[in-house]
C-alpha cells in the first residue's frame, strides 16, 4: 500500500482549494445529488446536453480534498464528451489522473462519489431513451 501522506501532493491540495468547474448551472439538462452517508460529503452535478454531447458541466457541494480533486478531474474529463463516451468512464480514468489507484478502502468512497453521481445522473437522462440504461444504474450502485 502506498503511504497515505503521499496522496496529498500538490495537485490534490490545489484542486481542493481551486476546484475546476465549481458552481451551478441554471435549468440544466441533467442534475443529480448524492452524499456519502459515512462522512456527510455531498455532491451535486449539473450538465447541459446538446446534440447528445455534454456541452457544459458544473458541480457544487462539499467534500474533502480527495473528493474535490476527483470531482474536478471528472468534470474536466466529461466536458465536451458525447453521452456515449461519458457513460464509459471508469474509476481508474479518474484515480489515474491523480495517482490515487491504491487509495485505502475507506477513502475510495470520497474519490468515487462524483463518479457515482455522474452515472446516476446519466442514467436519469437515458432511462426513458436507452434500452441499456439499466446497466449504468447497476454500475453506479456497485461503485462502492
Amino acid at each position, binding site marked *: 500500500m502506498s503511504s497515505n501522506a503521499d496522496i496529498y501532493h500538490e495537485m490534490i491540495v490545489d484542486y481542493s482549494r481551486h476546484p475546476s468547474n465549481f458552481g451551478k448551472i441554471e435549468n440544466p439538462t441533467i442534475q443529480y445529488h448524492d*452524499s456519502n*452517508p*459515512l*462522512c*456527510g460529503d*455531498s455532491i451535486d452535478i449539473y450538465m447541459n446536453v446538446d446534440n447528445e454531447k455534454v456541452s457544459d458541466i458544473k458541480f457544487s457541494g462539499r467534500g474533502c480534498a480527495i473528493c474535490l480533486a476527483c470531482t474536478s478531474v471528472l468534470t474536466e474529463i466529461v466536458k465536451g464528451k458525447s453521452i456515449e463516451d461519458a457513460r464509459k468512464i471508469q474509476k481508474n480514468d479518474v484515480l489515474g489522473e491523480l495517482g490515487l489507484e491504491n487509495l*485505502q*478502502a*475507506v*477513502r475510495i468512497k470520497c474519490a468515487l462519489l462524483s463518479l457515482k453521481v455522474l452515472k446516476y445522473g446519466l442514467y436519469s437522462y437515458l432511462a426513458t431513451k436507452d434500452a441499456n440504461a439499466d446497466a449504468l444504474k447497476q454500475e453506479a*450502485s456497485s461503485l462502492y
Partner: protein
Amino acid sequence: MQTAISVDQIRKDFPILKRKVRNDKNLVYLDNAATTQKPIQVINAITDFYTNHNSNIHRAVHALAEEATEAYEMTRDKIAKFLNIKDRQEIVFVRGTTEAINLVAYAWGRQTIKEGDIIVTTEYEHHSNIVPWQLLTQEKKAKLEYIAINDHGELILDQLDQYLATGKVKLVAVSQMSNVLGTITDVAAVIAKCKKAGVRVLIDGAQSVPHMKVDLDSLGCDFFAFSGHKMLGPTGVGVLWAKKELLEQMAPFHGGGDMIREVHKYETTWNDLPYKFEAGTPNIADVIGFAAAIDYLNNIGMDYVRAHEIEITKYALDRLSAIHGIKLYGTSDMSKRGGVISFNFADIHPHDLATIIDEDGIAIRSGHHCAQVLMEKLDIAATSRASFYIYNTKEEVDVLINSLSRAARLFKL
C-alpha cells in the same frame, strides 16, 4: 471428500470438551440445539480482534478502523458464499434468529399486514416464530393460523393449501427444522405452493443452517433467519437475509447511527442496504468471530456434518428405543430428521431426569424448548432433549444410556 476428518481430531479444537463437571465427570454436552460449543479458532478470532484490531467501524479512516471494517465486512462475504447468496447487500447482521424475525414483523409486517389478512405458521415452531406474529396480527386485527402436524411430527401440508385458498394469506413463516422433533420441513414444497399463490415465505433456519447444506439462491424464499451461536459462532450475532426488493421497500426498523444517509431536524434519508437495517454500533467482534465458525464448517464440510449427525442420531434412537418406558417423539425416517431427539422416560418429569443425569456430567435440555404450542399439541408439559453436533461420539450416547438406568433405579421404574 474429506475422508480424513475424525471426531477425535475435531474434539481437540474444542477446549471445553476437556472440562470435568460435577463430581469430576467428563462433560457430555448434548445441548447443541440450544447453543453449540466454540472451537479454539473462534475464540482466538475474538481475542485477536480485541488484542490487535479493535475499533468502531465504517466511519473512521484510521488504521484500526480500516482493519476492523474490512474484517467485519468479510464475514458478510463468507456468509454469502456459505449460503449461496448472490447479493451481499441482502445480508443484515442482527443479534440472532429472534431479532431477525421481529425485524421482519416490524419493518415489513406493520406496513403490509391489514385487517383480515392471515399469517400462517406451524404447530412445531419455536416461540420466536410465533410470538412476533401474535403481536403483529393482534395489532392489525389479522389472523394467525397453524399448520398442524401428524403423528410422525411432520407438517400436514394440505392444510397450507386450504389456508392459501382463502386468498388472504400474506405470509407463511415456518422453520426448516424443528428444534424439538428434529423434523426437517419440506420447505421446497412450502415455497412452491406459496410462490404459486403469490405469498411471501419466511424460513426460520436456526436449526437447519448449522446442520445441513442450505442454498438460499435455489431455495427461493423471501426471508431467512438464523443464529451464529448455534453453529460454532459467538453469542450475539445472527443474520436476517431477505430479497433486496423487499429490504428496499421496507421501512427502517431501528433509527440511529450508520443507518442514515442524511439527517436533518425534521427529515432523514436512509443509507444503502444492508446498513439501513444496522443501526448503532454492531456486535463487531462477534461478527468477526463468526467468520471463523464459517471457515471451520467449510473446512470439515456440511456433508460431513450431516452424515455424522445421521450416524449418531440413528445410534442413539436405536439404543433409546430399546429401553423400556422411553417414549420417542418425531419421525424415525432419518432423511427427514436432524440430530435432535426429544423423549420422555416413564413418569419421570424431564426436569428431574435432567438433574439426575447432570450428576453424570451429561448436559441435556428439559422443558418446553420454547415450543409450548407443540407441547400443548402433544399434550405433555415437557420433554427431555438430546441434540448432537460434530464433536459428539457414540461413547457419549452410551454414557447417556447408562445414566438413564440410574434414573430408573432412583425412580424405581
